[in-house]
């Protein structure tokens, strides 16, 4: 059984191994051991610090195979994008250039550096064992975060954002970066990506051009890639769009990838969510659900089956109950897988 739970310090080496295996770009999880360990420690503070809503909190979850004890994925949430510092994006807007005298009018797309997403809830640090990429555990790992946010109403900004990786290749060619940031920071995309994970994205973003960028001045290859996602992100995009996420006007300032957004309350996970009491049982058939406990400090979530009846409790298997660390009568949240 695959269990989502808070990352703890002893996960460090497993997370390192996992990151080295995943192909996806995970700029938000540093590969440097000291920094990774600091991330875990921040996350532990966040999970424990249930009372304090004032400080930005950075949560990190892991997906553990409860049988083997091995980790197969990570996912995270920042309660405030930017963690108190500006969260940088380019915002695609259009300016109308029209001449009365010449009777012409055209819309010119322009990228404005923007902090507008600062402070919104950011889903990040998603990395999964490639073997599970096409399984339902992909959904579990990603959507468990929505379960967590939904059960912790009031602790998160109602708007959630996700940055989707843009177009680049293994050699580090990234048409958007090469046409924009690289004119000012002469490092290739992979190096920049590395610094983003090591130094913080904010740090890097402060170095990129501050004045608006006129899109018609970019080479066509770069302009085309504005708001386009990498094919490795198809699976996560499919999931997020189904949840109700939509493409925003914002893009990543490095690779030009899109930022998706949705309000928590409009996500499918939230809309289908129910709260009942746990009733551990031998018989627990039914449809597949994401099932979580209702705790902040020791949040847990798994995929399990149940039948939603009319009473205030639902039967769940003993195995699920054990994984979630709940006993009969404890609160459960569940939402259709």
């Amino acid at each position, binding site marked *: 059984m695959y269990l989502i739970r808070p990352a703890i310090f002893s996960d460090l080496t497993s997370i390192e191994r996992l990151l080295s295996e995943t192909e996806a770009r995970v700029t938000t999880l540093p590969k440097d051991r000291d920094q990774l360990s600091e991330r875990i420690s921040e996350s532990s503070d966040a999970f424990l610090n249930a009372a304090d809503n004032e400080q930005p909190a950075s949560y990190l979850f892991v997906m553990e195979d409860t049988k083997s004890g091995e980790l197969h994925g990570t996912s995270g949430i920042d309660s405030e994008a930017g963690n108190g510092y500006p969260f940088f994006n380019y915002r695609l807007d259009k300016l109308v*250039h*029209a*001449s*009365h*005298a*010449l009777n*012409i009018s*055209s819309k*010119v797309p*322009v990228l404005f550096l923007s902090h507008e997403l600062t402070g919104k809830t950011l889903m990040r640090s998603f990395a999964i064992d490639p073997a599970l990429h096409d399984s339902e555990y992909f959904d579990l790992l990603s959507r468990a975060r929505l379960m967590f946010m939904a059960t912790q109403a009031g602790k998160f900004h109602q708007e959630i954002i996700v940055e989707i990786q843009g177009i680049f290749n293994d050699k580090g060619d990234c048409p958007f970066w090469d*046409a*924009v940031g690289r*004119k*000012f*920071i*002469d*490092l290739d995309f992979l190096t920049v990506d590395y*610094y983003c994970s090591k*130094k913080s994205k904010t*740090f890097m973003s402060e*170095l*990129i*051009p501050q*004045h*608006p*960028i*006129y899109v*018609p*001045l*970019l080479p066509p290859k770069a302009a085309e890639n504005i708001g386009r996602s990498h094919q490795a992100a198809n699976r996560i995009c499919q999931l997020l769009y189904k949840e109700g996420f939509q493409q925003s006007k914002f893009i990543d300032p490095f690779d030009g990838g899109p930022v998706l957004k949705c309000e928590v309350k409009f996500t499918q996970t939230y809309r289908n969510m129910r709260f009942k009491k746990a009733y551990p049982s031998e018989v627990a058939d039914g449809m597949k659900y994401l099932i979580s406990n209702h705790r902040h400090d020791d949040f847990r979530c798994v995929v399990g089956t149940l039948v939603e009846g009319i009473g205030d409790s639902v039967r769940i298997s003993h195995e699920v109950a054990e994984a979630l660390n709940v006993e009969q009568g404890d609160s459960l949240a569940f939402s259709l897988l």
Partner: protein
Amino acid sequence: MYIRPIQQQDLDDLYELAKLSGIGVTSLPDDKAKMQAKLESALSSFNETVAEQQRTYLFALVDPAKEKVAGICALEASIGHNDIWYNYHVGKTVHASHEIGVHKITQTLHLSNDLTSSSEIATLFLTPDYRNNQNGQLLSRSRYLFLAEFSELFSEQIIAEMRGYSDENGRSPFWDSLGKHFFHMEFSDADHLTGLGNKVFIAELMPKFPIYVPMLSDAAQQTIGKVHPQTEPALAMLKSEGFEYNNYVDIFDAGPSVAAKVKNIRAVRESQITAVVIDEQAPEPDLNNKQALLMVSNRQFKDYRVLLASQSALVDGTLMLSPQQATLLQLTESDSARVVSLRPNPSLTPTGA
């Protein structure tokens, strides 16, 4: 040959000049009504019937043998009051971080009206037949004696805008990389529209935010502040008088603007006021001896005149003029003149200029 303010009777000659000048000299409109308007503006400037900052002083180079206009030149008292005056200011933007060892200086173009209220060395055109005998030098540099005499009518700073680079086919790489994306027309069309005095469309269509130079084509980047090959001599002449590139360029072709303080222009600074003696024996100027020529102005406003004399005519602060010269200059022995050598003395040019 002598210089005088333009007059109403010059209209036909001016129209001839405009036809000869063709494209490239957009300030000479190939249209009689517009030319008349330009002429009237100049006449009212010399008549002092318009406010000082609205004035355009237009001068003619006249062949006294035929009383025919061989060339014209102009001084604008103060630019940017009828239309908005645009340039790109070429600035620097630095992106730096000690931590990752990045320090990059990039150029940035800022749309600006900064040169508004400067004076301007404007239009100059000389008929091809007269491109000899120092006529071009006289026509261009005669303006400095006017500036020296009437500096209170001009701004402290004076500029000249130089035609920017374009290739043999008239294509401007700067335009193709920048302006074209916003104006959706060819350089020549945009240039033509501006020449007709239609500048509102610039404000309407021009990008308002700064442009990062590294985002332009390499060819465009190289033309920023570069003059058209045919304009090199004009640039050299201005530089010899002390004008320097001031980091402002044309918004269409990125041709440089050059600027000087009026008081620091060589011909202004070195000009001196002399007594006048009229004598048949006055030496004739040798037009082939470039360094031995003096420009002489009569110091008058409405009847401003300039011509060339020989350096040797100036002795101990007194200038000897032939009766013919005196007549052209409308000077008598009770008058004074303002003189300066036509060209800078090469040995006196500041070492680094």
